[in-house]
């Protein structure tokens, strides 16, 4: 278009006024064109809107004038301003008898209104009338409007007329009717599904242009469902043959290429029909071969056909000879200097390698060229291709390229997309862990918070697990190199939060593991991390846990830890944090520091994040304890539901006994109490059901006492107690009593050995007392029935110990928060003491918090507690949930210790 090159002087010529519009409009366009700033333009347009608003409402505006106003409104709206005050006038104009005015009205309406606009209803009538018009131009105008304005609900109003128009004598009208019906199909397929035969009939229309309109519709219909159209293969092939052989009217030629647009559409349809269908594909081979031979590869449109043909060949059942030709064409595209053809070549190659992967090798150089091209479209397309080509042997190069690419773009959309591909490839083909970690670090660094959290967890897990084999040396080498790498990365400014989280975790877990860095140094680094992102609570959580772990490791190794001033002030600050999660962590931190060396070592052992935590959900090791407690007169366990119901009751009825009895009445749907359960003890797995079954009995037999009441009150306060958390409750107390205190990172084995071997007996009394306070009842009712049971649970010895002490231990004992523990043994106890109550509220707290997505970490700590609780019980089956979460949950690493925060639990104890 040589002439168009002259357009540059556009506005200079503007004053000639030869375009038949008014001077004013011309002025408007000119001043807008010359506006120096966006603000100035804005001002001009707003003034124009004001004047139009005024004038358009004047009575008796001449129709010609009105048309111009409306066109000006269209122009104003195109510039992004609201012209809705004039919509109604555009609608009115569609009623006009003058074709040009009517068309202008339709045009304005189609530009102004969406199909769901309220004003549409005023146009339907006009459209209906116009569709019946004798003037085919009016029909066409209405059909064009129909495409834009008719929605699902209004389709029935015009459908009959349009179907009629399929047989209109003018091919232009038939063609547009087909298009309108196609549009209806897109809007709501069911409204026109009965018209499929009519469509197919139009395929044989005497005018090829109608046929080609039908092809558009067919393509979309076949895209939805191939089946009903399979029989068309032969006819479509024959149409294609006619087109290729130049038998369509000359007017369909384009630059001497016969009916190229028809050919392209047909090729697309055949690709759909021939996919996975050998018979259909064989019908096509002939004509496809013909196209490859005849098409002119020197013109753009000829290449368009060739590319489409390649695409079809790679979709349908393979024909080796034709594929060979397709590969040659692809090669030609790739070698071309024209970027468009290169682009198509890369695309075609991507399709070819799905069938013949080896063909990529011939084009390596061309592909590399495209990859290095400054043209972003081409580069991205090539990365697409590389992604498809990635194998274990080339993953390093390809990922390197991708990383380089995302490093240089600023577009978040593609950054996200490509980094997710990098991650996918790295996960699938990583040659070594070392490489994987490096790659991930790069991705985090570049794409930062666009990377999903899960990837960070996977990375931490990988670092923790290492190769997963026996090779400890390699693993620790991997870790220290990771630590090294992260210390290096920390020097960079502005790191994304997610990467800092990973770094914090790794430093906490392995920072001092290889002895090359001092605890002070690592803690200092951790404090620096926080300083870079003061408002990031989640990150702080990671850092606190990391510091906790490092201090614990140091103490466990017999060193003293002197916190550096930054760290101290950081910690001080957290005591007053608004985040309960952070507060919790910091209290845990302090509690841990107060423990003695051995305890710490078992709470937070070095490098234990990958140990499986075995959780005995059924708490079978408690059986004996419970039995003895019951034997000593404790009340049996009540399930949550039960207790909740009772809570409700007790508030109503001051008399507890009354409460219980009515409680029964309130739960008629519960299984009737089965008396045998009392006998039934049983395997651990029965617990839960038993609990439900039994608590009825027990509630009857045992009277409520003050403790229970309070307990209920607390429960309410802390939020809905669900069955599961409750179930854990009993674990905790015992857990503590038995195993002293188990940290998340404590290896399951350790814990178990402790349990079974029943460690320091002195301790035992006290814990048991505490337990009894609030949870004894639960535990008792859970296990009580089983006391008599045949299956003595593993912890037979414990039983005796526990029973004697526990039974009497009443709520009195617990509230005393004993933060100052003189003897070592007692110390454990004292810590565990407050701990017991703490579990409950914390669990619930975590429940509350975890609703908030941002509080993922707090959830973790919940999980951890659960794990802690469960860890004691090594013998039972280990629930998968806890295993899955192991490495993640371990970050927190400390059991909650309420000792320092007695207020928190006051409610519990009353």
């Amino acid at each position, binding site marked *: 278009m040589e002439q168009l090159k002259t357009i540059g002087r556009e506005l200079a010529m503007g004053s000639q006024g030869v*375009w038949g519009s008014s001077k004013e409009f011309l002025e408007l366009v000119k001043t807008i064109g010359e506006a120096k700033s966006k603000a100035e333009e804005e001002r001009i347009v707003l003034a124009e809107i004001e004047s139009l608003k005024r004038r358009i409402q004047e009575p008796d505006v001449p129709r010609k004038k009105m048309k111009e106003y409306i066109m000006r409104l269209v122009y104003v709206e195109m510039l992004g301003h609201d012209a809705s005050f004039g919509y109604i006038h555009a609608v009115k104009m569609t009623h006009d008898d003058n074709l040009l005015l009517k068309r202008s009205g339709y*045009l304005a309406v189609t530009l102004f209104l969406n199909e769901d606009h309220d004003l549409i209803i005023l146009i339907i009538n006009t459209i209906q009338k116009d569709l019946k018009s004798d003037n085919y131009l009016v029909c066409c105008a209405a059909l064009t409007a129909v495409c834009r304005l008719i929605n699902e609900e209004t389709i029935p109003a015009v459908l009959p007329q349009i179907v009629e128009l399929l047989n209109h004598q003018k091919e232009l009208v038939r063609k547009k009717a087909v298009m309108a019906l196609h549009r209806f199909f897109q809007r709501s397929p069911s409204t026109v599904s009965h018209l499929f035969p009519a469509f197919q009939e139009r395929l044989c229309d005497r005018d090829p242009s109608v046929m080609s309109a039908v092809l558009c519709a067919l393509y979309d219909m076949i895209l939805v469902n191939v089946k009903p159209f399979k029989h068309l293969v032969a006819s479509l092939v024959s149409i294609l043959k006619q087109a290729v052989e130049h038998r369509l009217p000359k007017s369909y030629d384009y630059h001497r290429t016969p009916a190229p647009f028809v050919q392209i559409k047909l090729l697309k349809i055949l690709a759909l029909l021939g996919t996975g269908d050998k018979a259909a594909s064989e019908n096509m081979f002939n004509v496809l071969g013909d196209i490859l031979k005849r098409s002119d590869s020197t013109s753009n449109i000829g290449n368009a056909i060739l590319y489409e043909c390649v695409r079809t060949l790679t979709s349908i059942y393979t024909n080796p000879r034709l594929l060979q030709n397709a590969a040659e064409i692809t090669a030609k595209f790739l070698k071309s200097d024209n970027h468009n053809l290169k*682009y*198509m070549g890369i695309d075609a190659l991507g399709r070819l390698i799905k069938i013949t992967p080896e063909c990529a090798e011939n084009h390596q150089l061309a592909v590399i060229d495209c990859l290095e091209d400054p043209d972003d479209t081409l580069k991205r397309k090539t990365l697409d291709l590389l992604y498809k080509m990635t194998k274990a042997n080339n993953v390093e190069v390809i990922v390197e390229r991708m990383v380089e690419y995302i490093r240089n773009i600023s577009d978040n959309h593609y950054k996200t997309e490509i980094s997710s591909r990098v991650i996918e490839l790295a996960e699938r083909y990583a040659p070594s862990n070392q490489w994987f970690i490096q790659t991930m670090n790069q991705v985090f660094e570049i794409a930062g918070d666009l990377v999903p959290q899960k990837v960070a967890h996977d990375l931490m897990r990988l670092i923790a697990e290492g190769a997963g084999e026996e090779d400890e040396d390699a693993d620790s080498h991997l870790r220290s190199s990771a630590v090294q790498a992260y210390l290096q990365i920390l020097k960079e400014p502005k790191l994304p939060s997610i990467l800092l989280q990973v770094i914090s975790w790794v430093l906490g877990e392995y920072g001092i593991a290889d002895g090359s860095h001092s605890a002070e140094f690592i803690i200092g680094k951790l404090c620096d991390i926080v300083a870079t992102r003061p408002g990031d609570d989640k990150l702080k959580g990671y850092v606190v846990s990391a510091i906790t772990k490092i201090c614990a490791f140091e103490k466990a190794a017999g060193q003293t830890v002197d916190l550096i001033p930054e760290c101290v002030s950081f910690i001080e600050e957290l005591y007053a944090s608004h985040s309960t999660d952070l507060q919790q962590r910091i209290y845990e931190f302090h509690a841990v520091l107060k423990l003695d060396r051995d305890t710490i070592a078992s709470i937070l052992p070095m490098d234990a994040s990958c140990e499986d935590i075995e959780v005995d959900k059924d708490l079978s090791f408690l059986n004996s304890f419970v039995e003895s407690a019951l034997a000593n007169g404790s009340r049996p366990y009540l399930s949550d539901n039960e207790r909740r119901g009772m809570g409700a009751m007790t508030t109503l009825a001051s008399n507890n006994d009354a409460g219980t009895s009515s409680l029964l009445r309130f739960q008629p749907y519960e299984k009737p109490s089965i008396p045998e359960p009392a006998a039934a003890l049983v395997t651990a797995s029965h617990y839960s059901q038993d609990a439900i079954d039994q608590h009825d009995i027990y509630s009857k037999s045992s009277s409520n006492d003050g403790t229970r009441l309070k307990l209920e009150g607390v429960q309410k306060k802390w939020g809905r107690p669900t069955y599961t958390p409750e179930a854990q409750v009993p674990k905790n107390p015992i857990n503590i009593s038995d195993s002293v205190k188990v940290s998340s990172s404590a290896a399951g084995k350790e814990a178990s050995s402790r349990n079974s071997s029943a460690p320091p007996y002195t301790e035992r009394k006290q814990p048991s007392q505490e337990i009894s306070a609030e949870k004894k009842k639960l535990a008792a009712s859970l296990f009580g029935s089983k006391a008599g049971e045949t299956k003595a649970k593993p912890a037979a010895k414990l039983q005796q110990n526990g029973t004697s002490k526990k039974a009497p231990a009443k709520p009195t004992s617990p509230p005393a928060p004993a933060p100052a523990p003189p003897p070592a043994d007692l110390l454990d106890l004292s810590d565990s003491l407050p701990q017991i109550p703490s579990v409950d509220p914390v669990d619930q707290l975590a429940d509350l918090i975890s609703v908030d997505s941002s509080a993922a970490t707090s959830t973790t700590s919940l999980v951890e507690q659960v794990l802690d609780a469960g860890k004691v019980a090594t013998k039972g089956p280990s629930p998968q949930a806890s295993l899955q979460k192991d490495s993640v949950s371990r970050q927190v690493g400390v059991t909650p210790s309420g000792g320092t925060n007695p207020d928190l639990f006051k409610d519990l104890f009353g």
Partner: protein
Amino acid sequence: MIDAVLVMNTQGKPRLAKFYKSLSPVKQQEIVRKVYSGLSSRAEHFCNFVEADEIFGARTKLVYKHFATLYFVFVIDSGESELGILDLIQVFVETLDSIFKNVCELDIVFNFNKVNTVLDEIVMGGQVVETNSTEIVKSVQEIFK
């Protein structure tokens, strides 16, 4: 299918904006802006396609041609042929040229109505209905007779 046809000048001012999908005016403006910023940075010899996933949704592309002060942009999905659309743009411009005799940007601004009519004869409801320039000119002249 064709999702939109845009004509804008090299300063990013829209001269014609036709959307075949329902979009709010705000969204339309945003698209015009994004398309322009996507195109304005591209060198002349670069290929005439730009992936538009972010602007228009998955698997959409811009196919554009640059004439003097104007960009002609078609937004298409995978049901259209990129190279074919390039020729369709050519048809569109040739048609405008024969209707306006040496078409220039101002012709397009002032004859908004006519330009739209031409486009309606080529693309209807997002599908290509006519590709022969002579035929298009004939129908348009019929209408404006």
